[in-house]
């Protein structure tokens, strides 16, 4: 009984050895990114194109909050970062963890809430007045509570209206954007979301956009090549590719067919001009 097993094992081992020696495995690039790029489906759409352009590399995405993405990059656990937390990114660069930082694209945050009993009490003309109204009316607000870029922006907005959020009606979920939107919908609560994740889940949510277009809600994504990355050539290749004309055009087209509007506005060209001025 033992022998056929041993034979099968040795055959499969020798086959796998010969396969791996014939075809050099593509080198892995570890990309730490925000949950919004993953949850909105952008990566699923965009990354295969990178694979076709650079078959010598394979991308492994770690989708976490911006804060965590930067932290694990600082520890050397990622080669390249795509984040949307400008202040944290600047600190990251100042601390010398980053080799280069280039703008990639923009989208915006939206304040969403229950469709039915929305606008009654609150003034939804700006993000600040809406948050102040929500705090005053005692409506439930769900915070990401996970140090992500969206969480950072939410805290900035609370600070702008001089409200220290807390209490029973302020829930810190400690989860990704998709999970928080589902939770807000179930609990008929308000939350701050990036537009892309909201749009991609909209059909399953009973939430409507209440505030949009406020300059405070602009959301800039940048790509950072990590200093001393274990796959530095791969990280640079990816950063160059995602800011290239071809990838930027792909980004600009994403969502048009499915949602009737683009989810991200590519703006790497602006950044490259800025970089070349140095």
């Amino acid at each position: 009984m033992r022998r056929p097993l041993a034979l099968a094992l040795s055959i499969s081992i020798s086959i796998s050895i010969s396969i791996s020696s014939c075809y050099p495995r593509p080198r892995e690039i570890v990309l730490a990114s925000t949950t919004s790029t993953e949850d909105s489906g952008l990566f699923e759409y965009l990354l295969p194109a990178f694979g076709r352009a650079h078959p010598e590399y394979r991308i492994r995405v770690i989708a976490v909050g911006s804060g965590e993405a930067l932290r694990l990059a600082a520890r050397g656990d990622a080669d390249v970062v795509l984040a949307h937390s400008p202040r944290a990114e600047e600190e990251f660069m100042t601390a010398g963890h980053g080799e280069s930082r280039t703008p990639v694209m923009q989208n915006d945050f939206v304040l969403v809430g229950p469709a039915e009993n929305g606008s009654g009490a609150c003034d939804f003309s700006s993000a600040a007045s809406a948050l102040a109204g929500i705090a005053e009316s005692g409506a439930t607000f769900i915070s990401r509570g996970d140090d992500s870029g969206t969480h950072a922006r939410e805290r900035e907005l609370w600070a702008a209206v001089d409200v220290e959020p807390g209490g029973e009606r302020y829930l810190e979920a400690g989860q990704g954007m998709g999970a928080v939107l589902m939770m807000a919908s179930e609990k008929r609560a308000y939350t701050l979301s990036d537009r892309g994740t909201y749009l991609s889940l909209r059909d399953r949510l009973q939430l409507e956009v209440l505030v949009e277009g406020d300059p405070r809600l602009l959301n800039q994504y940048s790509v950072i090549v990590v200093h001393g990355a274990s796959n530095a050539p791969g990280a640079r290749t990816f950063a160059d590719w995602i800011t290239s004309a071809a990838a930027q055009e792909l980004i600009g087209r994403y969502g048009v067919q499915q949602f009737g509007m683009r989810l991200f506005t590519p703006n790497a060209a602006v950044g490259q001009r800025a970089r070349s001025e140095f």
Partner: protein
Amino acid sequence: MDVFLDAIRQAFGLLLTGDAYLWSIIFRSLQVSGLAVALGLLAGIPLGTWLGLARFPGRGFAVALVNTGLALPPVVVGLFVYIMLSRQGPLGGLGWLYTPSAMIAAQFVLAAPYVAAITLAAVQSVLRLQARALGASRWQALMLHLREARLSLMAAVAAGFGAVISEVGAVMMVGGNVHGETRVITTAIVLETRRGRFATAMALGLILLAIAFAANAFITRVQQAGPRRRPLTS
């Protein structure tokens, strides 16, 4: 290695100084998993007894189902309970989703099969030994053997408790990891590790390990005591 040792040192500091955030999470974990296992006992003992005694078509399948229940994937249970409790689901009216009640419901589904399977095994041993031949009624024999089986039942409780308190999939999905409400040891470890707060995560990890160790030490003792007791008592 320094990161690791630092985290352990700070973790002990946090535990000893009685960090409120930490202990509220530990308390919530014990509460949720404890109640789930207690409810699992209430449901599992009758279910196991009934399955052991009843004769009906498909009984073999039902027994296999209970035994499969021992290996139910928590995320699948989480998915099932989530759909049941969501606003569009059949039990949406309860408003349980993202509350400790939902977590108890999910962990109950995970814990009950442990109790049912052990009870079933005890009942089947009664029938096999045919204690009735000694003059006891079927009911008396059953009670006798359930009493004899109480040690294995306690082991089932320990095993079930150890399993549910260390699962993360179901409680994350149906509880939502809400601060001060549905955040338990396992979901907090996921979040604190993601936020880079290794000391807090490590402190919770040490507590979880201690609980798992206590549960398993208990099971081991029961298993070793079992065969040694038999010759003495009979």
